[in-house]
């Protein structure tokens, strides 16, 4: 062995890569994380794009980060601080608004204003969803067993899964089965009649997918987003102090403190294979690093079609990775502001800007936004999820200024004619003009604006297809099918090569579960 031999090399310094590194280092292993960019974080980074204005460039909220990771890696000690994002405000096309406030009773009163029937249903809905999210949660920390395998490991996994299923109440099982297969529109229409309420709730069912709210399968995505909302009152959707880079920073600091080495500006060109085993990586600058195992925290396409020559994998595996769906459907518009936009529906009420503002007046509105995108166009009137990070963490903007983060969907990766400057401007303009309809002072308040297209997500964050989950959370791409059948246990057909990022179980969001589970599987194999 040469002097630069490691126990494990981790490709990619996103949050999953860093979590994996921390867990391996914690077990006393010699680990190095190789990050292509000049800073760690992957899609969870904070960057100063305009002087004094800090943007969470891509991912912008936290809630799904696994509590055991926070605890075991002592992230608060390393600077992780999550500030609550207490409310959601939905301005309506008729000039009214719907406010879902921090206070449950206030929210019910507000919904009552729109529909007494919905106010009544809301309480029950929240209860059912919370219960279901809780029921599904154990699956997040389970290594998916391969139902076609007879190996003891998989049989034990299947047994555990069976035990879990039998442990559910009959009613829960049905509701879960329904949620997994339903459309979010159908789910919500069973409960509510207020358009703005249905639209706002349905929106979390489309995030990161290339489906409309009326397509089956979107209710599951909605549930996926619900899982963060319930873990104790203070762990509702929140915003990390210092932006999303604050999350990555805390994990990186924990990993370093545990002894992991982190190298930036270290772009991996390929995984080195010797005798049918991954034995290290070659960097773009020609350096070679050696190790017992390599863990890729990049997306499945780059992990299996980019870093490794296809000849090391069975054809069937390569085909199924090629078939893995990574259709990017969303973009981001980050704006530096000289003043806060005032929403005409409820002006002079800063509670609005302290929470999220959702442009989702109805399910049809979002469905029509999807209609544009499926034919290769940016939505003329997109769904937009807005937050004002500087209202929660004043350090994000210079005194008097503000930053505004707009998540926008749909912006298809495969746009007609390909992405160019004009299309990027068009996306920015769609966002500005849509929000301007509800907050007329927005345009004059803009100091600087960064528009991120799915193509940019691919180029900057290195995610193929620009899909924020490294691959859509579709029913045929989750659990034992993620990223591909038989290989959902973080191992790959190439010995010594592991896979642990959002493209693996349990999927996307700043969750860290895939990195943690992959690290634990590596440690198991070493036992």
């Amino acid at each position, binding site marked *: 062995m040469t002097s630069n031999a490691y126990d494990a090399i981790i490709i990619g310094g996103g949050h999953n890569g860093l979590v994996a590194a921390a867990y391996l280092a914690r077990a006393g292993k010699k680990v190095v994380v190789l990050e292509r960019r000049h800073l760690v974080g992957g899609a969870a980074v904070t960057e100063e794009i305009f002087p004094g204005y800090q943007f969470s460039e891509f991912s912008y909220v936290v809630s799904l980060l696994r509590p055991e990771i926070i605890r075991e890696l002592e992230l608060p000690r390393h600077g992780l601080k999550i500030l609550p994002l207490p409310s959601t405000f939905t301005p309506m096309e008729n000039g009214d608004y719907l406010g879902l406030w921090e206070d449950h009773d206030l929210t019910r009163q507000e919904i009552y204003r729109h529909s007494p029937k919905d106010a009544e249903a809301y309480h029950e809905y929240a209860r059912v969803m919370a219960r279901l999210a809780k029921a599904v949660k154990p699956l997040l920390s389970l290594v998916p067993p391969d*139902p*076609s395998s007879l190996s003891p490991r998989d049989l034990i996994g299947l047994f555990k899964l069976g035990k879990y*299923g*039998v442990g*559910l109440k*009959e009613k829960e*099982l*049905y*509701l879960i*089965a*329904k949620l997994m*297969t*339903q459309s979010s529109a*159908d789910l919500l229409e*069973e409960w509510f009649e207020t358009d703005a309420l249905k639209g706002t709730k349905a929106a979390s069912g489309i995030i990161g997918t290339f*489906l409309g709210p*009326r*397509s*089956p*399968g*979107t209710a599951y995505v909605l549930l996926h987003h619900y899982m963060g909302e319930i873990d104790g009152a203070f762990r509702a959707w929140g915003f990390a102090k210092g932006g999303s880079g604050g999350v990555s920073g805390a994990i990186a600091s924990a990993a370093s403190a545990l002894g992991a080495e982190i190298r930036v500006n270290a772009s991996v060109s390929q995984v080195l294979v010797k005798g049918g085993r991954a034995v290290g990586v070659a960097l773009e600058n020609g350096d070679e690093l050696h190790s017992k195992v390599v863990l890729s925290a990049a997306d499945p396409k780059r992990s299996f079609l980019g870093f490794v020559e296809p000849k090391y994998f069975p054809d*069937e595996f390569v085909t199924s990775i090629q*078939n893995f*769906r990574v259709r990017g459907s969303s973009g981001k518009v980050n704006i530096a502001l000289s003043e806060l936009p005032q929403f005409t529906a409820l002006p002079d009420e800063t509670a609005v800007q302290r929470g999220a503002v959702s442009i989702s007046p109805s399910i*049809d509105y979002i*469905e029509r936004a999807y*209609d544009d995108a*499926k*034919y290769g166009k940016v939505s003329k009137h997109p769904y937009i999820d807005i937050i004002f990070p500087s209202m929660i963490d004043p350090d994000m903007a210079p005194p008097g200024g503000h930053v505004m983060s707009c998540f926008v969907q749909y912006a298809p990766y495969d746009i007609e004619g390909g992405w160019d400057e004009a299309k990027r401007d068009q996306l920015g303009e769609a966002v500005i003009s849509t929000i301007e309809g509800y907050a007329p002072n927005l345009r004059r308040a803009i100091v600087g604006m960064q528009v991120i297209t799915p193509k940019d997500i691919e180029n900057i964050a290195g995610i193929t297809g620009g899909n924020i989950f490294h691959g859509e959370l*579709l*029913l*045929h791409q989750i659990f034992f*099918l993620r990223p591909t*059948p*038989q290989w959902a246990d973080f191992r790959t057909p190439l010995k010594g090569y592991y896979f642990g990022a959002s493209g693996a179980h349990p999927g996307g969001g700043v969750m860290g579960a895939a990195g943690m589970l992959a690290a634990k599987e590596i440690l198991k194999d070493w036992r």
Partner: protein
Amino acid sequence: MNKYDAIVIGAGHNGLVAAAYLAKAKKKVLVLEKRSIVGGSVVTEEFGEGFQADAVWTGGTLRHDIIKHLNLALPAPLGKPPFISLLSDSDQLVLDADPLKAAESIKRFSARDAERWSEFVAFMDRAAAFLDLVYATLMPRLPKRFSLDEGFGLAEMALELRLMGRKDMFNIIRLLPMTAVEFLEEWFESEQLKAALASVAIHGVTLGVLSAGTGYSLLHNWLNRGGPAHINVGKAGEITKALANAVNSYGGEILLNAEVQKIAIQDLRAMGVVLTNEQEFNAPVILSAVDPKRTFISLVGPIELPPEFVWHTQSIKMRGSVAKVHLLTNGDHGIPEGTVVLAPSIRYLEQAYDAAKYGEVSEKPYLEITTSGKVVSIHIQFAPYALKHGTWDMERETLEKLVLNTMHPYFPNLKSSITGLKSITPLDLEQTYSLTEGDLNHGQLMLDQFLFMRPIPGWSNHKTPIDGLCLCGSGVHGGGGVSGAAGRNVMKVLN
């Protein structure tokens, strides 16, 4: 006098299958049919002098084991005419039942696709055979309350799936929740071929080819037809006529013009039925072949049922968006024999669906055209039951014009050959054929209404909260299409 062992509501194919099995087992059975003819939506009707058409369902066959058990005198299918996709006034994709001939036609669009065609058909046939087994299996309530017998059925199903081999097993599991287009993209590159096959997925379903879960409806329809094209079974009404004869020959009774108004219930037990003419019939067992919404909301009544059950029943997605136009011509319609579809591109199909989402009729609809001599039958999608503007009585003429104008470029002689016309709107499907909201399958073919969730979660085994009342129509597991599985499966819970 009016006392029977069992009463079956509705003389559609499923009701008749159930009645025939009961009669064969020496039970005293009465079938009550609202209309003056049997058949339900598997019916050949007279719309005028020399104008006979399969009003709702075209093609499709009963399960072979049913034909055998009941000794049905059904003529053998008349052959397997091709599936023809119209691409322009002069260009077509022809998928012949012979895979080699089909590949010839596909070759013009993609040599690679032509090579994969046989393999694709073989996979679909294997997958359809598995779905057929699933439909024949009684679906117990999950997770705990099922009998040994039911558990055995499930285990057999799982074993069968595993025995298909790893590759098929995963491919079938993946196929069901996919969009039809995603699935087809894994096989083919030619837009024309993908669109033609994707149209099979949305047939009878209010979803677009880009909606998740249309992989399942593609497989369902493939099974129901035995391929992309309908088998030529002659007249669909012959199936239900043969079933009615079987019922009679085994000693069962069929009463026509007998519309059930309500199911009589006492202490949560079904006692009998009351007709609209106030005639009463009693039996300890009532089988409803009517769709679940109509059964529970209209015939039983919400007052007799647990509130949550009523809520689930009201949430069953029916939402039909199919209309039919039948034409009598002088014979010079110019339409080839086979299953002819207007589905030239994925975008065309998806745009047709877009209209339905907002309660509008597609400007450029997906059409499926079949002919029987001088008669031309056209299946139109999307024509949503719930129109945003206007009513179906007002829109009938617009629909008829739309169909004729859409077909004109492809068949210029058609218009002048027409001597008679009969259109069936979604409202007609509901009123005449008792299909609530015009849904051909008594509930949309969607994954959240599949297996143990059909018709509603927890009630997939034909039983209902009312003792003695069972479902045996298309709305329950096994149903959808013409197979008769639902009508047969109910026998397993009756002993």
